[in-house]
């Protein structure tokens, strides 16, 4: 092997390793963001409508059904993905760990801290957890995720200064930032 061949081999190996350790394209997971973005956004929207007196109180059961549907979908689709598991990198695995830890902490804060957080506080916690997930993906050279994370954080701040429209603003953050990110990942393939 001569010098140019050695350099060529090293450059190729470096390029291949870099592609699989730096990028986080998310492939099949994009659908999770769409489902959860729509479910969480709709939940915020429903509570916003209830808070404004536009929707009756019983509609909160629609929100509960949407979240239950998202959980059921995640369980079924996640199981299918695991059975097809064919190209998961260690970085993909790390991302899934971050996703589940962030969402589990948000869920526990909601269930175990319902005396601490009013209704919109719970919605805000989900926004924070979702933004952590997107910003983590964004740190791995995914600008769409970075933009989605920023949208969620901005929605949190805007909601804080818009007491009359908290539910609507948080909902918009989830629709645009989270579900929108999932759609953009699907379109980018």
């Amino acid at each position, binding site marked *: 092997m001569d010098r140019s061949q050695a350099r060529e081999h090293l450059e*190729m190996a470096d390029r*291949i390793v870099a592609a699989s350790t730096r990028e986080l394209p998310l492939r099949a997971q994009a659908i999770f963001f769409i489902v959860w973005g729509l479910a969480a956004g709709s939940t915020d929207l429903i509570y916003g409508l209830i808070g404004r007196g536009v929707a009756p109180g019983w509609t909160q059961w629609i929100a509960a059904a949407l979240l239950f549907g998202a959980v059921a979908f995640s369980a079924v689709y996640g199981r299918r993905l695991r059975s097809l598991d*064919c*190209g998961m990198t260690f970085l993909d695995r790390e991302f899934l760990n971050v996703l589940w830890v962030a969402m589990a902490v948000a869920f526990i804060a909601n269930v175990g801290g319902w005396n601490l957080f009013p209704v919109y506080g719970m919605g805000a916690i989900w926004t924070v957890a979702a933004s952590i997930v997107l910003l983590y993906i964004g740190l791995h050279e995914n600008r769409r995720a970075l933009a989605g994370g920023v949208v969620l954080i901005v929605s949190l701040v805007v909601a804080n200064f818009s007491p009359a429209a908290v539910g609507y603003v948080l909902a918009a953050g989830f629709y645009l930032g989270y579900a929108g990110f999932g759609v953009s990942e699907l379109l980018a393939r």
Partner: protein
Amino acid sequence: MLLSKVRLGVVAALLASEWMTFAALAEAAETTGGNLGAHLSKLVESGYVEEEKRFVARRPQSRYRLTRRGRDAFLGHVKQLQSFLKGAS
């Protein structure tokens, strides 16, 4: 074993993955399916790569992952290449 560019590419592609299918491996290693098969067989025979055959949705699927031996060989080979280039410069 890793003097072949294709085999080096395969091992590099497997380095950061748990398992990879044949098709995904061909794409990641920047080679064609026809070229990949023979090189993969050599890597499996030498114990650098582990092969698993299974059925997914009633279709046969082969997937591959790097062994400890393959990982060590890759790191050693890269060090050798780097030393060679340093010595030559």
